[in-house]
C-alpha cells in the first residue's frame, strides 16, 4: 500500500490544549478514506493538520516524502486540495466566478485565464451539476446547491488528493446522499484520493474504501469498513451498544443502535 500523504508521530495542539500525541496516519493512494469518531475525538484536527491549516508541534505531515510546511504553499495547493467546513462567498459573486477561483494555484501574473483554466472550470461545473447555475449569484442558492459549487471550486484546483471537512453538515438527507454519491463518483471515475471527516457512521461505512476510527486523539482502528465497523468497535469508540447488520442496499455494515430498555410507566426503580 503506497501513501503519498502521511502524518508521522504528530503532536497536534491548540494553544495549551493538546489534542493528539504521537499520532501517525497513512492515507492509502486512490482510496476514499473516511475519518470517524465521536465529537471532540480530534478527527477535524487531524484533517486540519493534513491540509496544512495546523502545524504539528512535533512530527510532520509528509506529502510525497517532504514536509508540507517546508514547501511553497502554492506548490502544495496543486497536489492537495481542501473543502473547508465553512467558507464565505464574497458579496455579489456568481457561481462561475467562484468556481474559477479554484484555478489560483495554476495561475500567474501573465497567465490569468488560460484555455486550460476555462476547460477545467467548465468540466468541474459539469461534474457537480452546477453548469446551469453558472450566472446565478451564490447568495441565492440553496444549501445543497451551494455545497456543490464549493466542491466544484475544489475540483477546479485539479488536485490528485482532496480533503473534505464534514462535507454534508447542514444538508438534509437527500442532499447528503447527493454529495456523497458525487464524491464516490469522483473517487471511482477520476481516481482521486479523497479523505473526508464524517459524522454519520452508516454513510462512512457505505462510501469509504478505508476507515480511520479515532478516539481521544488516537487512532483506534484502520482498514476497510467490513473489518472496522463491528459492534464491539462501535461500543468501544462511541460507547454505543448496537447491532451491525448488512446494509440491504449495498451489503456494507449498517449500525443499528440498541433499543433503549423501556421502563413501564408508573414504575419507579
Amino acid at each position, binding site marked *: 500500500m503506497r501513501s503519498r500523504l502521511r502524518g508521522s508521530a504528530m503532536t497536534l495542539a491548540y494553544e495549551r490544549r493538546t489534542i493528539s500525541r504521537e499520532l501517525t496516519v497513512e492515507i492509502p493512494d486512490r482510496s476514499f478514506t473516511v475519518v470517524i469518531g465521536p465529537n471532540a475525538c480530534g478527527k477535524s484536527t487531524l484533517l486540519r493538520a493534513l*491540509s496544512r491549516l495546523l502545524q504539528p508541534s512535533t512530527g510532520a505531515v509528509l506529502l510525497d516524502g517532504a514536509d508540507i510546511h517546508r514547501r511553497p504553499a502554492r506548490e502544495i495547493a496543486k497536489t492537495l486540495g*481542501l473543502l473547508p467546513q465553512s467558507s464565505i462567498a*464574497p458579496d455579489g459573486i456568481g457561481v462561475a466566478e467562484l468556481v474559477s477561483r479554484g484555478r*489560483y494555484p495554476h495561475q500567474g501574473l501573465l497567465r490569468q485565464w488560460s484555455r486550460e483554466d*476555462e476547460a477545467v472550470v467548465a468540466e468541474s461545473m459539469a461534474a457537480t451539476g452546477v453548469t446551469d447555475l453558472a450566472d446565478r449569484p451564490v447568495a441565492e442558492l440553496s444549501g445543497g446547491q451551494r455545497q456543490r459549487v464549493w466542491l466544484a471550486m475544489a475540483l477546479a484546483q485539479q488536485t490528485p488528493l482532496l480533503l473534505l471537512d464534514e462535507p454534508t453538515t447542514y444538508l438534509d438527507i437527500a442532499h447528503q446522499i447527493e454529495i456523497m454519491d458525487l464524491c464516490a463518483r469522483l473517487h471511482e471515475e477520476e481516481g482521486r484520493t479523497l479523505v473526508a471527516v464524517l459524522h454519520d457512521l452508516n454513510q462512512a461505512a457505505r462510501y469509504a474504501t478505508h476507515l480511520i476510527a479515532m478516539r481521544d486523539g488516537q487512532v483506534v482502528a484502520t482498514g476497510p469498513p467490513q473489518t472496522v465497523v463491528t459492534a464491539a468497535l462501535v461500543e468501544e469508540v462511541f460507547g454505543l451498544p448496537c447491532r451491525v447488520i448488512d446494509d440491504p442496499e449495498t451489503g456494507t455494515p449498517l449500525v443499528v443502535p440498541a433499543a433503549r430498555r423501556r421502563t413501564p410507566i408508573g414504575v419507579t426503580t
Partner: protein
Amino acid sequence: MIVLRTPGDISLRLHPRALAVGLTCALLTLAVGVLALGSGDYPMSAADVLRTLAGDGTPAEEFIVHELRLPRLATAIAVGAALALAGAVFQTLVRNPLGSPDLLGFTQGAATGALVVVVVGGTSTMLSGAAAVSGFATGLLVYVIAWRRGVHGYRLVLAGIGVAAILTGINGWLLTRAPLMDAARAVLWLTGSLDGRGWIHALPVLIALALLGPVVLAGAGPALRLMEMGDDSANALGVPVERLRLALLGAAVLLVSLASAAAGPVNFVALTAPHLARRLTRAPGPNLLPSALLGALLLVVADEIAQRAVPGHQLPVGVVTGLIGGGYLIWLLAAERRAGRL
C-alpha cells in the same frame, strides 16, 4: 469579462466595467486637476495651464503652477489614492466594510505623533515625520495585540478600537497641554488640510505609492481576493495567509501613515472610496485599482470645493470629505433600506 490571449501562453483577464470606471476616474481627475491649476487669485485658462505644464509659460505662470498649485494637486492625488488603496486593503483583510484606518486606530496614532511635536515644539517637517512614524508604530502595536497564532479579522478590529480609544484620550490631553496658537494649528492639522502643501509633502506619498502600489495591486491583489473567502479557503488554494496579511497590513499602514503625515488624517476617504468603487464596478473583490483612482478623484474634487465653496475663506479639505463621505454613507443606508437589503 474580457480575456486577452497571446500565442506565448500569456492570458489576461479584464473586467470591462472596472476598466471603464478606473479610466473615467483617471480622466476626471486630470480634468479637475487642470481646472484646479487654473483657479485661484491668479486665474488661468485651461489652455494656459496646459501650455505652462508643457514648459511654455511666462515666469509668473511657471512659478504659480509649478511651485504653488501643482504640489498641492499632487499631494491631493497621492493622499487620496494612498488612503483609498489602504482602505480597500483593510476592508478586505478584516472582512468588515467599516474596516478603515480611523476604526483601527492608525490615524489616531499618526495624530499622537503630530501632537507631541506641537506640544514640544518643532518644524512642520518634524511634525510630518513624527506622524508617519507614530502611525506606523500604532499599526505594529495593534498587530501585536491582536496576534494569537495568527491574526483574525475581528481580533484586529477589537484591538484597533481599543488602541484608538486610548489614543483619542491621549490626543485630547496633549491638545489641552499645547499653547493656544499651536492648539489651533494642531486642530487644523487634525481635520486634514492641503493648505500650503509643497513637494516635500507630496513626494514621500508618491514614492510610497510608486513602490508599494504595483506590489500590492499585481502581487497581492489576486491572493487578497481569495482571502475574502476565509483563511481556510485561501490557505487551501495556496495563499500563505498569515505572511501575506502581515505584509499587506504593513504596506497599508505605511501608506496611511505617510498620507496622514502629508495632509493630516483626512476623514472618510479610506472608508468611502472602496465602497463607491465596488458599487460602480459591480465586481466582487477588493477592487484595488478602481478604489485608488476614485480616492484620488474624491480628494481632488473635495479640495477644489474646499477652496472655492466659501468665497475668501478656505475650508480644511477634511471638512468637505467628512460631509461628502458621511452624506454618501447615509444615502447608502437609505438606498439599501428602500431596496429591502438592510
